[in-house]
């Protein structure tokens, strides 16, 4: 019986066309409808998609910089190779994601220019410095874990080409998380000094990690949720992160220094209010490493301009 029901559903959806007026379009995406590149879409939907997808692409491209710093300093050859592969994956993700935004109408050169000039944003966690190999482990494990929660929710995005590339991205991210967890496990089972490096890194990253999914605005008031670009609210994502990862952190003997952190009987996590001013300050270009990393990115874009010129002239 279950199978028959599925067949029935597919037939019905295939018969539905993307409705050519804004209100009907909204109802269409809110009831689970998906949109293709060539379909009609409201201007506001297109603009929101570009903004969201562009920021995602920027985050992948900028997100490799803190990790890249450690390729030369990785403790073993195996770690060096794994980290290099991960950096390559993340740059690959930015290529896939920029392509989707480009197809929606914003030229890639413009996106890169807006990134460099600070007009476009990227995720808060990529504006911070790294101090030790412990930071690399925490980034690869927990920052990627927080990111994969958002990305898994994008598998249900109303814009189908974006949802499709997310399948490949999530597949690669699962290797990244395991790599990060392996780095952390090696350190917490090592010397007391190595354990200490992980604890210190965790203390540094916990604040930014709690800010990562954004203000707890109700899903109903989130324009990205309204258009079903995102399929869950910010707080829902954070709760999922806490539920999945706090037990995994604590079982290693690591500590989370938030006196209010606890899981209520009804399953909801309580925590100290994250510093939303810091989040806003950092993502608007005032993070400790924002300008340095943007300058670095600009340096390489300039240096490799000739490659793009040659390809464009081909």
């Amino acid at each position, binding site marked *: 019986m279950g199978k*028959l029901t599925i*067949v*029935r559903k597919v*037939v*019905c959806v*295939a*018969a539905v066309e993307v409705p050519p007026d804004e209100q009907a379009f909204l109802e269409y995406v809110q009831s689970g409808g998906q949109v293709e590149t*060539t379909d009609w879409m409201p201007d506001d939907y297109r603009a929101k998609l570009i903004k969201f997808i562009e920021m995602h692409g920027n985050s992948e491209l900028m997100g490799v910089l803190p990790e890249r710093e450690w390729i030369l300093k990785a403790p073993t050859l195996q770690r060096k190779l794994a980290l290099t592969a991960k950096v*390559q*994956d993340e740059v*690959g993700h930015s*290529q*896939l994601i920029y*392509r*989707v935004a*480009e*197809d929606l109408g914003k030229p890639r050169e413009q996106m890169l220019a807006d990134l460099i000039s600070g007009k476009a944003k990227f995720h808060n966690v990529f504006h911070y410095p790294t101090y030790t190999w412990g930071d690399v482990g925490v980034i690869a494990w927990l920052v990627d874990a927080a990111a994969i929660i958002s990305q898994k929710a994008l598998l249900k995005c109303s814009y189908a*080409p974006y949802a*499709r*590339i997310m399948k*490949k991205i999530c*597949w*690669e991210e699962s290797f990244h998380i395991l790599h990060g967890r392996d780095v952390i496990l090696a350190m917490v089972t090592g010397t007391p000094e190595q354990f200490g490096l992980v604890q210190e890194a965790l203390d540094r990253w916990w604040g930014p990690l709690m800010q990562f999914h954004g203000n707890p605005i109700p899903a109903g008031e989130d324009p990205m949720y309204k258009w079903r670009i995102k399929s869950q609210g910010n707080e829902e994502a954070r709760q999922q992160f806490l539920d999945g990862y706090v037990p995994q952190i604590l079982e290693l003997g690591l500590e989370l220094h938030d006196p209010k952190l606890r899981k209520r009987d009804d399953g909801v996590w309580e925590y100290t209010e994250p510093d939303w001013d810091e989040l806003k300050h950092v993502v608007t270009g005032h993070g400790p490493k924002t300008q340095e990393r943007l300058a670095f990115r600009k340096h390489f874009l300039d240096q490799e301009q000739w490659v793009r010129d040659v*390809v*464009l002239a*081909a």
Partner: protein
Amino acid sequence: MNEWEVFRRERKGQPFEHAGSVVAPDADFAEAWAREQYGRRGESVALWLVPRDQIRDVEDWADEFDLKYRRVDGYSIKARLKLARENASAVAEGGA
């Protein structure tokens, strides 16, 4: 520069699925980008690259004659099934 749609086959025997697109000046560049973006981790056993402007798009499906009887959604048996079950149990009770 042209757009190329990329289809990938994950394992032998499986259908090609649309994966994404690349922009490239010619087929060789398109292949290089597609290999890099959709095959470098062994996640595909084959790729198809198709110039976007070569795709013949068929999206209109006329159904003037209401041909639902040829499909699963053309049949709603719920009400009749309920009635048939009630009739059957009424007969069974009457016979007892």
